């Protein structure tokens, strides 16, 4: 099972905050593109599909742009 665990991901020590922030930025840009293309707001599923991620991950990414970091400063100040 250690094997499975290693196989299942190669993301090593990447912090959640960084990853979500990157996804969040990508989501913002894609949202604009989709809105223009379809002439309406994309739904969360459409955007997640376009990004190739799960809706749940997108929900966290949408929150992340600054919040995770500011939380960090709250906790460790």
């Amino acid at each position, binding site marked *: 099972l250690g094997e499975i665990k290693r196989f299942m991901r190669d993301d090593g020590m990447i912090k959640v905050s960084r990853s979500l922030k990157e996804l969040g930025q990508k989501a913002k840009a894609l*949202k604009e593109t989709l809105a223009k293309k379809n002439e309406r*707001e*994309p*739904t969360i599923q459409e955007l997640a599909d376009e990004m190739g991620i799960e*809706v*749940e991950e997108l929900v*966290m990414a*949408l929150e992340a742009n600054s919040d995770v970091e500011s*939380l960090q400063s709250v906790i460790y100040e």
Partner: protein
Amino acid sequence: MQYQNSMKVSFVSKSQNEAFARVAVAAFVSQLDPTLEEISDIKTAVSEAVTNAVIHGYENQEGIITVSCDISDNVVEITVVDEGVGIEDIEQAREPLYTSKPELERSGMGFTMMETFMDEVEVESEKDKGTIVRMRKKLRSLE
């Protein structure tokens, strides 16, 4: 009524749990495949209600805040409950720009935001018992 689902989340009234409450509600509501705008409206309303529970309800002391979310077809009902100081004059509290804590640079626009971003907002409160804010929104992206 075709589709129903519900959840309830409780947490300590720490300001960092506002973000958590927003994500929890957004994640739950996402099962209805709303637009990003609808999610953002709901998150704003949840934030305002939870912030009020933290700052006014519990006056930054520790207390438990409970947020429930009930989905019936395409209507989302969100209830934010605290057992804090309560509101004496609800009508006054809901007036735009009214704040009991001007010294904290509060804008007094919390309830107005909730009303703007949701379809309905009901407030029940009793002094020293606590406050219940119930908000409803129909997700039109599903129509």
